[in-house]
C-alpha cells in the first residue's frame, strides 16, 4: 500500500494530532519497526519505561496502539504510517511479533462473528404499529411546516433577514419532535442562508421550494409505490436498516476515495467519503458518524484505492452506500471522467428529471483550467464553458501553483451551478487541494 504523506495526515482526527504525528515521524524515536503485506508495526519510546506498541492493519486500514490516548488514530499510529511512507526500506520484513498477529486474528474473528450474527426475531405487529405512529407524527409535522411555508410566501421573504436564528430553530425543533430530522436539517439550512450576500433571495427561495417539494411529495405519495418514495423518505429523515441492506448484493469494484469532508455538531462527527468505481463508473457517498472519543470503523483517505462491495441505499439516483466488504488493492488506474461541462449538466439534468431535489455530488471532469473572470474564479473546460468555483480562496492558489495555468483533470464537489475543487491529478498522481 502506498499512501502519500498528505493522505496519511488526512486520517488524523485533528490538527494537534497531525503536528504530534509529524514530530514523532523520526527514526530516532522508534525502538523497533517492521512491516509485511498485512500490517505495519513499531515500538515508540514514550515517557514511560516501556515503549508504546503501535500497529496498522493494511488490508482494511485500522490502527491500534498501547498508549493511553483517546484520539483515533493516535500520534504514534500516524507517525508510524508516515515513517513507513517516507522510509519503507528501513522497516524489517520479519515475521510479525505476537502482539501484532494476535490483534490481526482478533480483528478477523470479530468480522466473521459480525457476519454470522443473527438478527433477533422481529415482532412485526409492533413494528407496523411503530411505523404507523411515526407516519402520523411526520404527517402532522408536515402539515405544520406547510402552513409555515405558506405564511412566508404570503407575506413575502423580504423580512426574512430580520427573523434571526431562533425563529428558524424553533421550527426545526418542532420537526425533530415530529420525528422528521431530515426536514429539521433543511429548515436549519434555510435559516443559515447568507442574508448578507447580494442575491440571498435566490438560494433562500430554492431551499424553501425544496422543502415544499419534499413535504408535498410525501403527502401525495407516502402510501404509493412511486420509485422516488425512498428519496422522499430519506429527505424527511427515515432511516434504513443497514443490516438488512448489507444482506443485499452490492456492486464490487475498485473504488477510488475522491474526497473526505467532515464536520462536528454536538460531539458527533459526520464524515463523508466520496468514492468512484473505476469499472462501473459510479459515484458513491459513504457516511460515517462517530461520537467524540469513540474509535471510528472506517479509515479511508482520499487517493486510496480499495477493492470493495458497496451496497447502495435505494434511490432513483443512488449515491449513498455502505461498504459491505473491503479489501486492499494494487489497482491504481487513473479514472476517466466527464469530458466537459456539457456532459456534467446532461447527467445532472437526468438526475433532476428523476427527482428534483438533489444534494451535492462529486464529479471528475477532464482538462479544466482555473480562470479569473468578473472578480471570481471559474473552471473552464475545453469548449470554454465555465462554472464558478465556490470558496475559491480556500485552494485556488494551490491549484494554480500546481497547474501553472495548464488544464488538469479535477475532482469537484457541488452541482454544475457551483463547485468546490477537492483534488487534482498531476502527472498521474492524485493530489488533494
Amino acid at each position: 500500500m502506498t499512501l502519500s504523506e498528505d493522505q496519511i495526515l488526512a486520517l488524523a482526527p485533528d490538527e494537534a494530532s497531525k503536528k504530534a504525528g509529524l514530530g514523532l515521524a523520526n527514526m530516532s524515536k522508534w525502538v523497533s519497526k517492521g512491516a509485511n503485506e498485512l500490517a505495519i508495526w513499531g515500538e515508540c519510546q514514550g515517557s514511560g519505561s516501556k515503549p508504546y506498541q503501535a500497529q496498522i492493519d493494511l488490508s482494511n486500514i485500522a490502527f491500534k496502539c498501547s498508549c493511553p490516548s483517546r484520539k483515533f488514530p493516535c500520534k504514534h499510529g500516524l507517525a508510524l504510517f508516515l515513517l513507513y511512507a517516507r522510509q519503507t526500506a528501513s522497516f524489517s520484513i520479519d515475521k510479525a511479533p505476537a502482539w501484532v498477529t494476535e490483534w490481526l486474528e482478533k480483528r478477523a474473528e470479530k468480522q466473521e462473528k459480525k457476519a454470522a450474527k443473527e438478527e433477533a426475531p422481529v415482532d412485526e405487529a409492533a413494528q407496523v404499529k411503530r411505523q404507523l405512529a411515526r407516519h402520523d407524527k411526520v404527517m402532522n409535522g408536515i402539515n405544520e411546516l406547510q402552513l409555515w411555508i405558506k405564511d412566508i410566501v404570503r407575506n413575502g421573504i423580504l423580512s426574512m433577514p430580520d427573523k434571526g436564528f431562533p425563529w428558524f430553530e424553533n421550527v426545526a425543533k418542532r420537526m425533530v419532535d415530529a420525528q422528521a430530522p431530515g426536514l429539521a436539517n433543511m429548515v436549519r439550512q434555510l435559516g443559515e442562508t447568507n442574508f448578507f450576500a447580494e442575491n440571498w433571495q435566490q438560494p433562500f427561495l430554492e431551499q424553501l421550494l425544496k422543502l415544499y417539494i419534499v413535504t408535498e411529495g410525501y403527502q401525495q405519495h407516502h402510501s404509493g409505490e412511486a420509485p422516488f418514495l425512498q428519496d422522499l423518505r430519506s429527505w424527511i429523515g427515515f432511516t434504513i436498516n443497514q443490516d438488512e441492506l448489507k444482506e443485499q448484493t452490492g456492486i464490487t469494484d475498485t473504488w477510488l476515495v475522491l474526497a473526505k469532508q467532515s464536520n462536528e455538531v454536538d460531539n458527533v462527527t459526520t464524515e463523508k467519503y466520496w468514492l468512484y468505481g473505476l469499472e462501473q463508473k459510479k459515484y458513491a457517498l459513504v457516511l460515517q458518524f462517530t461520537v467524540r472519543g469513540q474509535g471510528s470503523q472506517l479509515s479511508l483517505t482520499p487517493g486510496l484505492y480499495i477493492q470493495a462491495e458497496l451496497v447502495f441505499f435505494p434511490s432513483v439516483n443512488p449515491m449513498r452506500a455502505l461498504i459491505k466488504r473491503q479489501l486492499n488493492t494494487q489497482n491504481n488506474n487513473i479514472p476517466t471522467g466527464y469530458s466537459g461541462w456539457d456532459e456534467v449538466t446532461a447527467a445532472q439534468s437526468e438526475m433532476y428529471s428523476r427527482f428534483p431535489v438533489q444534494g451535492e455530488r462529486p464529479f471528475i471532469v477532464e482538462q479544466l483550467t482555473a480562470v479569473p473572470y468578473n472578480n471570481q474564479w471559474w473552471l473552464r473546460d475545453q469548449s470554454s464553458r465555465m462554472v464558478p468555483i465556490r470558496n475559491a480562496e480556500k485552494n485556488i492558489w494551490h491549484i494554480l501553483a500546481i497547474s501553472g495555468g495548464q488544464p488538469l483533470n479535477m475532482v469537484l464537489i457541488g452541482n454544475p451551478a457551483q463547485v468546490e475543487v477537492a483534488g487534482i491529478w498531476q502527472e498521474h498522481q492524485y493530489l488533494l487541494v
Partner: protein
Amino acid sequence: MQSWEDVIHTAMIGTDKKILSVSQLPESLAAVQTMLTDKSGNDKEILYLQQSSLLMNYKQCGLSLLQKEEIGTSMAQPEEKPYCSAVAAQVLKEVLNAEAPLLLEYWLRRCAENEQIFPPVFIPALFSKARQEKYLQGLVVRCSGKRGEWMCGLNENWNFYRGENTEETWQTGTQEQRRTVLKETRRTNPALGLTWLQQTWATEDAAGKLAFLEVLKTGLNEGDISFLESLHTEKSKKVKEEAVNLLKHTPGSSLIRLYQQVLAEAVQVKKERSLMGLSSKTVLQFKLPSSVPEAIFESGIQKMSSQKNISDDRFIIYQLISFTPPVFWEQHFQLKPVEIIDLFCKTEEGYEHTGAIGMAASRFPSPEWAALMIEDENRLFLDLIVQLSPEQKEKYLLKHFEKAGDTLIQLVGNTTVEWSVSLTKAIFKYTSTNPNQFTKTYYRDHIHLIPVGVVPELTRCTPSESYPAVAWGNTCDYLRELLSLKEQIHQSFNS
C-alpha cells in the same frame, strides 16, 4: 431567465400583494400550468409554490453555462533552473512544520546558493510566509522560479519586490519597495542612489523624505554632503534633524570640519616639568576656545553637562571628539594611533576622552582604531566588534561574556555569521541559567547562528540548579530537533 426573476420578485413582496400570471412562465410549461391552476383551487400560496417548484426544476434541468472564449489565460513560463532534490523538498516540508522562520531562511539560502528552485506545490505556503516575514521575500521569489513569478502577477498580496527593474521599482513601487531598492542601490552604487533620490525629492512627502534619508545611511559618503547640506531649508523639522545627523556621520562635511577646527584649538600638546624641573613630560591640555561657534550647538552638541563632576567644557569636548573621525588626531599630532592613545591616557581627563574616541571609531569605521580601542580592559566597545576579524571578535566576546553576558547576548544575536562551538557553549551556559528569559523562542529565532557541532556539548551546558536544569533538558530536546533539521538541510544540498 426572466420567468425566474419574476418568481423571485413575487416571493419578495409576497403572494398577498402579487401573483404569478401564466404569461410570466415559459410557453413550454403552459399545459402543466393549466393543470396546476385547476388543482390548486383558490389557494394562491399553493399555486405559487407549485408554479415556482416547476420552474425551478425546469431551470436546473436546462442549466445554461457561461461560455467565454475570449478570456485570456496566461501560463507560467518553463523553468530555467532545476528543482531541488526530493530529499530537500521533504526537509522543506518538515521545516515548514517546525515553524522556525530562520531555519526556513537557512533552507532558502542553500537553495538559492545552489541555483535551484523549490517544487511549485510549496508556492502558496511560502508566499504566505514571505508576506508575514518580509525578510524572506527576496529569497522566496528567487527560489520559486518562473512559476512563482507568474503567481506574483496573479495575486496582489504577493506582488513582492523581485530584485529586478530596480529603477522602475524606484519610480513606481510602494514606499516599502522603494526603500528596499534604494537601500540595495546605495550598497552597490551610492552615487546612483543619491541621483534617484534627488530626482524625486521634490515630489516626496515629509514622511517619505524622512524614510529615504534614513536609507541614505547605507553607503554614506562625501558625495552626499552637498545634497544633505542643501536640506537646511526643508520645512519639516524631523527631515532637517535627520540631514544634520547624517552630516555628523560624514567625514568632510562642513559640520565635521567645524568640530575639527574647534578641537584643533581645544586639544593641545603641552610640556610639563616634573622631578623638581629636572625632566619634562608631554601631556595634552584640554581647553575650549573663548568663543565656540553657535552652529556647533545648533547641530545637537549639548552645552550643559548633566553630571556634577564633569564640567560643561569637558562635556562639550567629549561630544566633539565622539563626532570626529579618529584619523583627524593622526594628522593633528602627526603620531601613530597607539602613540595618540598613550598621549591621551597620560591624564585623567585624556583617558576619559578615549571613550569618545571609541565612539568615533564606531561612527567612522577604522579597523586599526577599533583593534586598538578594544584593548582597554575597563571599557566595552560593543559597536566596534563588527570591525574586528572573526578571531579578534571571538576572543573579545569570550573574554567578556562572564561579566557582560546581558549586553553581549544582544550583540551576538545581531550577527549574521554562525557562532563557533566555543562561543555557543559560552552563550548556552549563560542562557540555560535563565529559562524564563530564554525560552524556546530565543533558540528558534537564533537557530541560523547555532552550529550543528554544538549538539554533543549541550548536556555540558546544564545549569546546577534543579529548575533551570529540567527546563534546559526540554530545551535541549527542542534544539536537537531543530539542529537535526539544520543538518538535514545541509546534507540535502550537498549530497
